[in-house]
C-alpha cells in the first residue's frame, strides 16, 4: 500500500545531499517568501539543513538532539529529537522509527505521496512528497490548515555524498547564546 511504498522509497535513500529552493505561498497561491540552501541526510534521523539565502540559518540533527542555529540573532536552540518532529517535516523523511508513521495516513496520487496527520491538533494539514523516476525525492510540500503552503524543490541530488565527520554535529561559535531546551 502507499504507506509501505513510501517508507521503502525513503529507506532506499539511506544517505543523500541536495540543494533546495523554498517557496512559500499564501492560501490563494500568491508567492511570498523564498529561500535557498543545501541539505545532507543520513538515516536514521541525522540531517543538516542549511539555508544560505536570503539569510543564513542551520538545523542539525545528530539523531538524538536537534540544533537550530539562527545567526541573525546569534542564538542556537537545542531540542530533543522527538520534540522537533512535530514542527520539522524533514524528520519524517529521515525517520528510522516506524512507530512515528502510525500517527499519519498515507495515500498516493500520480506518484505524489500525501501524508496527513491523524492528530487533528497537528498544524501540518498535509505533507506531500514527489519522487522522480530514479526514485529520488524531487519535491516536498508542507500545507497548513490555513492554506499556507511551503514548497521545497530539490536539485543536485547526490545519493553518495561525502559527509564531513562533523556534518551532523554543531558547535556554537563564540558569543552565540545557547537556549538548551533539553
Amino acid at each position: 500500500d502507499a504507506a509501505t511504498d513510501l517508507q521503502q522509497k525513503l529507506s532506499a535513500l539511506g544517505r543523500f545531499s541536495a540543494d533546495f529552493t523554498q517557496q512559500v505561498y499564501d492560501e490563494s497561491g500568491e508567492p511570498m517568501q523564498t529561500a535557498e540552501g543545501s541539505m545532507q541526510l543520513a538515516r536514521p534521523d541525522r540531517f543538516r539543513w542549511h539555508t544560505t539565502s536570503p539569510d543564513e540559518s542551520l538545523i542539525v540533527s545528530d539523531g538524538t538532539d536537534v540544533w537550530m542555529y539562527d545567526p541573525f540573532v546569534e542564538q542556537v536552540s537545542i531540542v530533543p529529537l522527538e520534540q522537533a518532529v512535530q514542527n520539522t517535516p524533514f524528520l519524517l523523511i529521515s525517520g528510522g522509527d516506524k512507530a512515528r508513521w502510525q500517527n499519519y495516513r498515507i495515500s498516493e496520487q500520480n506518484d505524489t505521496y500525501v501524508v496527513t496527520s491523524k492528530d487533528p491538533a497537528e498544524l501540518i494539514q498535509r505533507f506531500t512528497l514527489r519522487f522522480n523516476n530514479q526514485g529520488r525525492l524531487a519535491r516536498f510540500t508542507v500545507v497548513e490548515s490555513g492554506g499556507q503552503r511551503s514548497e521545497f524543490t530539490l536539485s543536485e541530488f547526490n545519493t553518495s555524498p561525502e559527509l564531513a565527520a562533523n556534518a551532523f554535529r554543531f558547535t556554537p561559535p563564540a558569543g552565540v547564546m545557547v537556549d538548551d531546551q533539553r
Partner: protein
Amino acid sequence: CAYRAEQAPAGSWLAQKQQLSELENWQLAARLGIITPDERGSLSLFWRNNSDDYRLNLTNVVGKRVFDLSRRNGRIELIDSEGQRHTASNARDLVYALTGWDLPVEQLADWIKGMPGDADTVSFDADGRPAQVQSHGWQLRYLGYTQIDRLWLPSRLELSHNTTTLKLAVSRWELNP
C-alpha cells in the same frame, strides 16, 4: 547646508522625500529578528502594503506560519499559528497580546521606507539619509540602504524600545507591484 526639495541634488534623500511619502503601494521580503530579555529569534517576513491596507506574514525557518496580520478597510485581523482569527482596533496591541512582541506596525510602515515623522529627532548620514531617529520612545538606527528605481530605501534597520530590539534585513523591495 539645507536644501529646499526642488534644489536638492538629484538622487539625494531630500529630493526623494516627497516621492517616499507618496509611495504607498509596495511589497518587501525581509528577516525580522526579535530580541527581548527572555526571547531571541528571527522569522521570515513578507509585507504587502497598499496605502492604509497591509498584510504582514511571518513564517518560521521551515515555512510554517507564525501569524498573518492584515488591515483591510480599517479592519485589523490577525490569524495565528493555529489558524485562529483575532480582531482588534490596534495592530500593535493585538500583536503584543498574542505574542508578547512589541511590533509598532503602523509606524513601521513609514520607518521601513526610511520616513521619519515630522516631529522626530533625526540625524543624517554622509549621503543625507536618515541614520538615527528618535520617535515616540523608539530609537531607530538605519544600517544600510539600497537604491530601487533611483529611490533610496533601507536594507538594514534596527529599532529598540524599552527592552525590545527589532532587527530588519530587507532582501527584496518591490515598488508598485
